[in-house]
């Protein structure tokens, strides 16, 4: 049963992959054939062959490394900043959710600011944060580049975690709360033995959203901080030379997507290990 399910999922995955490939290549073939220009002209510059993008990974770059290695270094740099930012943002988001869930007055007063924090465009805020942190010194030296990037990633991470933690903590079954009350349980015990476990499915939903958002946040953070070691730098760099070699930028996007998917899968795995629920009750 389980093996059949896994096989089926792999089959569907491969099928969808094939379908996407067919759409991409079919579109390219048809538009090049007919010379259609709407919605945009199609040629090797705007839409390279997929296999050409993959083969490009073996070409050397100006740094001397092959593209695949260069992008791997970039991806690891971004992944480090994003994962640290993600962990930090998740912890802050969770703590904030717990505090706000416990103090009604505080929630009403603080929640508008939490929401406002996310309506400020990250593109406007990131340079300020990055520059501000650049002037901070820790032990006589400014924080390393990746710390500044991680802060932006954390900024994008905490919000969904706070909102869902808040919602999840309040989702505990009223009877289960009465049961705890009958045991004369203290607030702290109720929090750890009932409210947090009840909130876990909600929190993991937020973490899945935050996992991908933290990668995007890290890339934007790198770009606004002019930090060139990560995927953000690679994107800016290859964007400048797009006319000369479009496949480099496409390959970079591929790496960025893989980092995001990797983050998502790690959260998914953690959820499987941590959250024990009836299958139909998983959020």
């Amino acid at each position: 049963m389980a093996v059949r399910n896994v096989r089926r999922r792999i089959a569907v995955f491969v099928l969808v992959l094939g379908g996407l490939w067919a759409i991409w290549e079919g579109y390219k073939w048809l538009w090049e054939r007919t010379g259609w220009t709407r919605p945009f002209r199609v040629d090797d510059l705007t839409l390279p062959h997929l296999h050409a993008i993959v083969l490009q990974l073996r070409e050397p770059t100006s740094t001397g490394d092959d593209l695949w290695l260069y992008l791997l270094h970039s991806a690891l740099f971004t992944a480090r900043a994003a994962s640290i930012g993600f962990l930090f943002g998740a912890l802050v988001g969770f703590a904030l959710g717990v505090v706000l869930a416990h103090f009604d007055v505080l929630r009403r007063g603080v929640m508008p600011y939490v929401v406002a924090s996310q309506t400020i465009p990250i593109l406007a805020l990131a340079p300020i944060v990055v520059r501000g942190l650049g002037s901070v010194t820790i032990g006589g030296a400014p924080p390393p580049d990746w710390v500044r990037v991680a802060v932006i990633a954390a900024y994008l991470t905490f919000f969904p975690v706070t909102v869902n933690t808040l919602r999840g903590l309040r989702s505990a079954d009223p009877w289960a709360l009465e049961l705890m009350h009958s045991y004369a349980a203290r607030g702290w015990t109720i929090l750890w033995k009932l409210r947090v476990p009840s909130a876990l499915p909600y929190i993991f939903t937020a973490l899945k959203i935050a996992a991908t958002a933290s990668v995007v946040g890290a890339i934007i953070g790198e770009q606004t901080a002019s930090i060139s070691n990560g995927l953000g730098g690679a994107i800016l760099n290859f964007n400048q030379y797009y006319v000369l070699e479009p496949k480099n930028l496409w390959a970079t996007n591929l790496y960025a997507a893989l980092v995001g998917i990797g983050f998502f899968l790690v959260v998914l795995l953690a959820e499987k290990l941590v959250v024990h629920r009836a299958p139909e009750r998983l959020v």
Partner: protein
Amino acid sequence: MSADGSVVSIRGLTKVFGKGGVTALQDIDLEVGRGEFVSLIGPSGCGKSTLLRIVGDIVEPSEGDVTVNGKPARKARLDRDYGIVFQAPVLYDWRTVAKNIALPLEMLGWDRAKRAERVRDMLELVELTGFERYHPWQLSGGMQQRVSIARAFSFSPALLLMDEPFGALDEMTRERLNIELLRIWAETGSTVIFVTHSISEAVFLSTRVVVMSPRPGRVASVVPVDLPQPRTAATREEPRFFELVTEVRESLHATGADEVEETLATEDEIA
């Protein structure tokens, strides 16, 4: 019954919900002696569940006194003097059967070895040995409610509060669990207050049946049940059983509880 021998003593209890709002319970006086099995029966909305919750200090009374083991209800709750079973099993999905049963023991600060031993005894008591590592959603409704009962009995509380614990189960499972509950009650020597809207269940289980009137809920009558112990499936076929069922039914009718007739009709069909 003297007040000294009472596990639960309720005097002049009134409960009004909201400001000048609905009177749910009015002038309730009730004594429950040690080792008794008392059922509260009445139409929907008569406040029987509220009465149970007031005894458990989950809801506060508007007027009157409730003492449990000679202490105010609040003190009794803080001393963990009672166990409670709800209409739903209210098990924690993320805990295994064994860990669900151990929950109150953790609260009481029992060490791991002592908890494991008690969980083993409890599983044996509710005949679920072998299921300790299952999660609640892997069990049937009847099994889940047995886990819930094991959890309530696990720390040997003097008093058991049960709020229609078998209401959601099918008739066959319910009758089997009725017999099981009586066996556990006899083995543990505990005192039970049991809310139900099934007349036959109330008569079968109880040493006394308290019939309540529709809102505002009052004690309309108390029917002592003199069926011999231990009760078995055969008890349900004794003439005395039917006489008592009729007596409770007539008391309910006398309160003008129309809703109960539906329950009666379905019960007659099954019989």
